[in-house]
């Protein structure tokens, strides 16, 4: 067993898993953003209850657009977690 390689792989593995976790920090942004969207939608419904349907539809679209960066971070984290591009290249 190649000790050095195993230890190096363990180090790279730890860095990879931490990197995936740090990437998920990007989800703070979409969380805040969707919160704002929801708050404004509630305000709008309170002001104009008859337009609830249109407001809800627009809100869902806005949420979806907000989510994009969070989804990118999630996909990146998944790629790092489950394909392990760096530690698997060490053999």
């Amino acid at each position, binding site marked *: *067993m190649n*000790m*050095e390689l*195993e*230890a*190096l*792989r*363990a*180090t790279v*593995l730890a860095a990879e898993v931490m990197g995936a976790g740090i990437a998920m920090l990007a989800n703070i942004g979409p969380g805040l953003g969707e919160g704002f969207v929801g708050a404004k939608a509630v305000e709008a419904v309170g002001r104009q209850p008859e337009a609830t349907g249109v407001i809800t*539809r627009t809100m*869902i*679209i806005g949420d*979806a657009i907000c*989510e*994009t960066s969070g*989804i*990118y971070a*999630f*996909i990146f984290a*998944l790629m790092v977690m*489950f394909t*392990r591009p760096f*530690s*698997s290249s060490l053999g």
Partner: protein
Amino acid sequence: MEFITNGEVVEFLGEYFEADEPVARPPVEAAADGGFTVDGAQIVVPVEILGVSSDPDSFVSFNLTTSVTVQWVMLIILGILFFILGRNLKVKPETKRQAAAEMLVDFFNGMVSDAMGSKYIKYAPYIAIIFCFSMFNSLAGLLGMRSPTADISVVGTWGLITAFLVLRNKFKTGGFWGPLKSLLEPVAPMFPINLIGEITNPLTQSFRHFGNILAGTIIMGIIYWAMGFFAIFLPAVLSMYFDIFGAVVQAYIFSTLTMVYVLMADRSPDAQ
């Protein structure tokens, strides 16, 4: 602070690893004895055609995966459903079946004419089928199948269809130079940014759908795996959000964004 070189790290870690002890391995390998892994679509039938190998690691392969077969199942279900709904229609609705069919058609007609105006009402069948097909494919996870929409090659194809529809609408409303002119707006130096925007629109659309459904699949998988034998009540409640709500909302968002992108591509003078 001194920079730690690789050698020092190895030396430092070396104290903790005895030579005979198993060193920490990626959980992907440990998964064989009960761990949790995330797999892509499994290959059902390996296909070798046109000289392309069936190796899943190669860049291009035409293997028959679970994504394709589950889509076939969903196509058959949708086909039977729509065939039954559309049979024996009367001018005055007599059956509940026809009332349901009319409600469905009205819903999609209203959705398209609300978002795009009556000029684009001929997009209603496409929007309806992309909505239903996306929803049924995402809901396949409830039946224990792997959702085809949790596979980027499926949703990416739908994103490509959107890109083609956008291009077609630009040609149709702006003439032969319509697509090129739209890239040079408002001023010519904006060309690279417009080009990037044009490429990322279908990309983000498909990635959003893919990411959401995959996230739901993984979270539900983790819950089932973690609860094991005791998975009784909680998974059902969480499945309401992660599977059903996610599937419906993502289908709605995907079709709405398709309509928005096609509408934004309108180059005729009376648009907007």
